[in-house]
């Protein structure tokens, strides 16, 4: 048996900046960013409900997390895109709920459940003495939360949120199941025609890796910015470059 490797690098370079691929990459990025924003907003809100003293708010938030963490994202996407329009049988809803919007909303709500737990953990990580100190100065619960607790919680929340976002970038490929032409679906549409399967999958992989790399660098910068007041702030790519340039100028 002979092993025939038919891999054409030229195809990879040609399709890397192909307009269909580029369009798919943009859709992936947009869906991931918007869904993550929705997720962070929902997570912040539900986390506050979950730690509040109101038992109804607690149960409501607990139910949300339980349901959306407990069912697959694909199922939730199908419910939103296929199930709900049929249930309401409303033409405007069907028209307005495009694949793109359905993906953003479904992934956003799904992400919110995970973010609820992350934000809650962040708030709980702040020493109880901080709330005592804020209250003893006459701040209300809300003022203390906003000015004292959340800024400190943010430091704990950012690393797992970065993780979530990276997962989100890749999980947007799930939306190919409702026919959204995102990065993976775009490459599949192309290899369905030219049969250069491996080459186009590599193209998609390169784009995913590029996005993830860029966001990892940005996350490190954000973490450094948030480490204000810490004795040792983490080094990042930019901080090292600046230090080296500053050092040379010094000589």
């Amino acid at each position, binding site marked *: 048996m002979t092993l025939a490797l038919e891999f054409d690098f030229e195809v990879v370079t040609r399709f890397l900046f192909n307009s269909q691929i580029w369009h798919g990459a943009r859709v992936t990025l947009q869906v991931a960013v918007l869904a993550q924003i929705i997720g962070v907003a929902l997570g912040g809100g539900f986390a506050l409900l979950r730690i509040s003293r109101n038992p109804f708010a607690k149960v409501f938030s607990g139910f949300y997390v339980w349901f959306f963490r407990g069912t697959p994202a694909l199922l939730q996407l199908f419910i939103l895109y296929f199930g709900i329009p049929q249930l309401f049988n409303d033409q405007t809803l069907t028209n307005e709920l495009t694949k793109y919007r359905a993906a953003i909303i479904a992934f956003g709500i799904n992400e919110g459940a995970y973010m609820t737990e992350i934000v809650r953990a962040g708030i709980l990580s702040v*020493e109880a*003495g*901080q709330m*005592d*100190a*804020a*209250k*003893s*100065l*006459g*701040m*209300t*619960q809300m*003022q203390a939360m906003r*000015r*004292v607790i959340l*800024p*400190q919680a943010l430091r704990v929340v950012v690393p797992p949120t970065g993780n979530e976002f990276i997962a989100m970038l890749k999980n947007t490929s799930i939306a190919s199941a409702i026919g959204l032409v995102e990065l993976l679906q775009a490459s599949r549409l192309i290899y369905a025609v030219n049969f250069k399967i491996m080459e186009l999958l590599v193209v998609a992989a390169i784009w995913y890796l590029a996005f993830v790399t860029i966001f990892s660098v940005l996350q490190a910068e954000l973490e450094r910015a948030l480490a*204000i*007041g*810490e*004795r040792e702030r983490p080094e990042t790519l930019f901080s090292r470059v600046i230090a080296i340039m500053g050092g040379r100028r010094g000589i």
Partner: protein
Amino acid sequence: MPSFGAVIARRERILRGGGDKRMHRVPATCADRTPYNNPTMNPQPMLRCIDVHKRYGKLEVLRGITMNVERGEVVVVIGPSGSGKSTLLRCINHLERLDSGHIYVDGELVGYRQRDGRLIEDSEPEIARKRAAIGMVFQRFNLFPHLTALGNVIEAPMRVKKTPRREAEERGRGLLARVGLSEKVDEYPSRLSGGQQQRVAIARALAMQPKLMLFDEPTSALDPELVGEVLDVIKSLAADGMTMIVVTHEMGFAREVARRAVFMDSGFIVEEGSPADLMSAPQHERTRLFLSRIL
């Protein structure tokens, strides 16, 4: 370094002449103090605790505390750990709810209002308003680590009293100078020693112009050589007439500053008297035993 009296005088001028209506939410007595409390103008005690009970689950931490603190008086509270000293302080500014009893600060019931002889917990903003008049300094400082020393001091005046930033900063610098930290205004707490952090915490509490200051073992978390600098600040506050309750194990300090020492054990006030008397001639066996261990 401006004297503390000068800082207070300036603060009072600002308070009287301040055009900002919101400034008038400042407790009225703030402007009447010379420099802090004038006993002749108001004979009512600064603090009245009446039969205060507090339990955590089955554990009864306070079992009927009754005590008064006069205006300008410094009271030291001593006692073994778990005797309820910290809980008493936390109840005074309503960081803990009471199970029964009353606490009045400057004649005002803290944390509750009375209706048909029953106590009803105040609304949250109302609790916050009453707390603002009571300063508290914690054993573990509890500075806000994401804010500079000055940021820590001006946060509450700006958010709670709506003092304009420039004014708050000017006063904040004055207060930091007052505790000997003019050089550290822009440092973050992580870059300050324990003694410096605690002095910032004292300045932070003073920034709200409290009527009453509560110190919860302010030097217990400090290295021995840093204790003095914090006690000196507290002493100078006492000299300025600030009403204070200090939970401490520093007996020398108690003897020097406090008019009265209170010995607590297992939720009761066992005995009280002048620090010198309490230390040299304790009436109760429990007090004797405790003192023999720490002196």
